[in-house]
Every structure is written in C-alpha cells, then in structure tokens.
C-alpha cells in the first residue's frame, strides 16, 4: 500500500497527498479500524478519523463542512444493516446520506468524493483494503479545490 501511494504521487509529479475525513460509528467501523491497527494491517495515513456514536448521527453538514475546510474526500462508515447498536441508526443513514450525495452531484460536486460504507468490528481487513482503495481513488481524482477556493472575495489591507 505504501508502494501504491508512492507511485500515485510520482505520477502526479508532486508530493500532494489527499485528505480524507472519515466519520466512523463507535460500535462497528471504529472497532474495525481498531482491529486493523491491532492486526498490524498497513493502510494509507491520508485518512483522518472522527469517531461518532452512530452513522445515523452524521448530519450532512459534517460532510459539507469537511469539504469547506479542505477535505478531498469524505467517508461515512457504520454497522452493516441489521447490526446497529441503536437498532435503526444505520437504516436512517442509508436513506439520508445517499440522497445527500445525489444533491451534491446535482449541484456539480463530484459524488465520487463522498463515500459510504459498512464495516463491522470483525472486518479489520475490509477496513484496510477499503482505505487503500479510496485513497487510490482520491489520488486519481486529485485535489478538491472547488469548495475551499470559493471563499470570501479577496481581502484588502
């Protein structure tokens, strides 16, 4: 995986690294990422994890704010359907978040920059390969400059 990253950066000719913000549910995906670490799985460090109680807790504003602050990709990961610690949080997320992705796409914001996944506490390997895959995709998509760039008009003085 380290090898993949190097080749992507070399291909780009810069030392740019994508920034991926990941919102993980406490009960499954965060534990899955923990397991990946404990199992000494190697995966790219481009991902920055924010731990939340549930994928149902993810307000679309979290995603938008991440993009505003310079994220190149956002990932939301929770328990597999049926496994939610709060019984239905991920079912709600499964309705809300894909709809939000549609809205982003409709407005011209590349929907490939917003990922949703289910990773259980036992899926350390799925987690590390998922992160490797989306990091590779983030390299291919390049920096997401539209959002952070469209800030306030040039400051004077």
């Amino acid at each position, binding site marked *: 995986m380290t090898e993949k990253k190097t080749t992507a950066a070399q291909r780009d000719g810069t030392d740019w690294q994508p920034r991926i913000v990941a919102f993980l549910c406490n009960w499954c995906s965060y534990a899955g990422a923990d397991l990946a670490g404990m199992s000494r799985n190697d995966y790219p460090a481009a991902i920055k994890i924010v731990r939340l109680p549930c994928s149902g807790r993810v307000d679309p504003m979290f995603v938008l704010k991440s993009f505003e602050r310079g994220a190149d990709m956002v990932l939301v990961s929770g328990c597999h359907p049926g496994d939610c610690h709060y019984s239905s949080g991920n079912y709600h997320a499964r309705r809300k978040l894909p*709809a939000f992705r549609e809205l982003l796409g409709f*407005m011209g914001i590349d929907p490939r920059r917003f990922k949703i996944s289910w990773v259980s506490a036992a899926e350390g390997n799925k987690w590390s390969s998922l992160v490797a895959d989306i990091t590779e995709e983030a390299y291919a998509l390049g920096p997401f400059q539209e959002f952070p760039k469209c800030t306030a008009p040039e400051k004077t003085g």
Partner: protein
Amino acid sequence: MHRTGENRMNATPVEESLREAAAGAIADGTVGVVIGYGHEAGSDVATPLFARTPEQARGLVFDATCVGNLAIYLPKPEVRALGRTGLVVKGCDLRAVNVLLREHVIEREDVFLIGVRCAGVCEPPLHKCTVCPVHDPSGCDVTLGDSVEQPTADASRANALVAEMEAKSIEERWEFWKRQMTKCVRCYACRQVCPLCYCKRCIVEKTTPQWVETSPHLRGNLAWNVVRAFHLTGRCVGCGECERVCPVDIPLGLLNQKMAGLMEQWFDFQSGLAPDEQAPFTTWDPNDPEEGIL
C-alpha cells in the same frame, strides 16, 4: 391603499361563495380570522387578507393572481393569538397544510380549511400548476368552486427541468450553480416565505459552531442553499414560493424538484398528499436500496 372587495365590480360566483363561507364562519364564531386573498392597488399578485369581521370578508377574492401560499401563517404565534384560523387553500397550499399536520406543528382542530378548486394560477399557468396532482383539495371543511378536470400525472413532464440539468456534465452543472449561487445575497426570503421553514431557530443563525458561513460569498451561499434544499427533502410540496420571491432569480425550485423526484423514485413518496403520511426520512425499511454503499 386597500381596495376592498365591496369596490370590486363583478365578483365571480366562486368569490361570492367564498365571501359567504368566510363571513358565516366568522359570524358564528367558528373562526377568529379568515386568511385569504385580497386585491391591493399596484400589486400584480393578490395580497394576503386577514378578515376578522364579516364585512372584511367581503374583500376576499379568488382569481389567477392568487399565487401565494398562505399556509405560511398557520404556525405563527401572532396569528394563532387571533383565535382559530380559517384558511383559504388551493390544492397546492393544502399539501403544505398536510405537512404541517403530519409534523404536528398544527392540529386539525386549530384550522378551518376553505378549499377552492383551482385549475392553475397565473397566465400562462405556472410550471407547478401544469403538473399539479391536486386541483381539487380534499379533506377541507368547505370546498368551493366548480369541479376541475384533473389531468393524469405525467412524471416525465414534472421532471423535465431536472432531467435537462442532469443531462449536462458534472462540470457544466458546477459552472451553472456557481453562477447562480454567486448571485445570492443571503436575504433568506426563500426561508421566510416557505410554509415548512418554521424552525424557531434556523441553522444559519446558530453560531456555536457556525455551520453555515453567513457572509454572502459563494462558499457560504452554496452551504446555505444545500442545507435549505436538504432540510426540505421529503417535505417540500413544490409550491414554488421560494423561487418566486428570490430577488436574484436563483432557480431554487429546481433543487426542490430534484429532491422531490428522488423521493418519488426511491420511496414512491409525494409530500403533502395526506395529513397522516410518513415522511421518508422519518422511517426506514430493511429492504431499502444499497446502491453506492461500499
């Protein structure tokens, strides 16, 4: 300024029955106020008229200029203080009332609904009128007007504008919305006029943390319009008021139509058709689609 209906010559039969129904409801104490449409010199759309006496109800009108959605007044405490509210509704307005009922912002006994059958307002009819599924408001306390033919629903026509936008490449869409959103002056007229934006404290007014940047630059404007569209997803009834009042003509209705179309496509749901429906984001199904989830 106020031109009352008494001065208006040739009231139509609908207007006569509307005035009669409103005056009767006020006179017998059924309602404290009837909110309907009136004419005001210099305005090319009908303005809201609050009738608190049978005489004032003589000013009510109903014609092609009655564009506004009066359901906006129902949740307001200053309106509720006037007593039980009588409200003149077209089919589209009734859909907004249904959402307010379903969200328990108001209860059915708080309102006295005077439905008016309507084949469409404005000349030429608005887009929303040409695809309107409720020309005949049902479930009102009184329903007035001649019966109107209900055209069969044509989803492709309803979604024509959305389909046109979706046919563009993602870069073209971004350029389009960037151009549109740059114009936004953050007057929040879209929010003020929306019958379903009734939050006492809107997310843009929340500052700790500040979710939406308040200065009118593109990034904040995008955030505001995304959040507005998403808060109305599965709720918006497509009355088109936001787009009508936008001082810089941002096609806000297009965003709402996109999301409404999505709710229909994914969950077979059209907002506001009944007061007891279940909004898509308040429920879930174990068999919901899993597309695009890794």
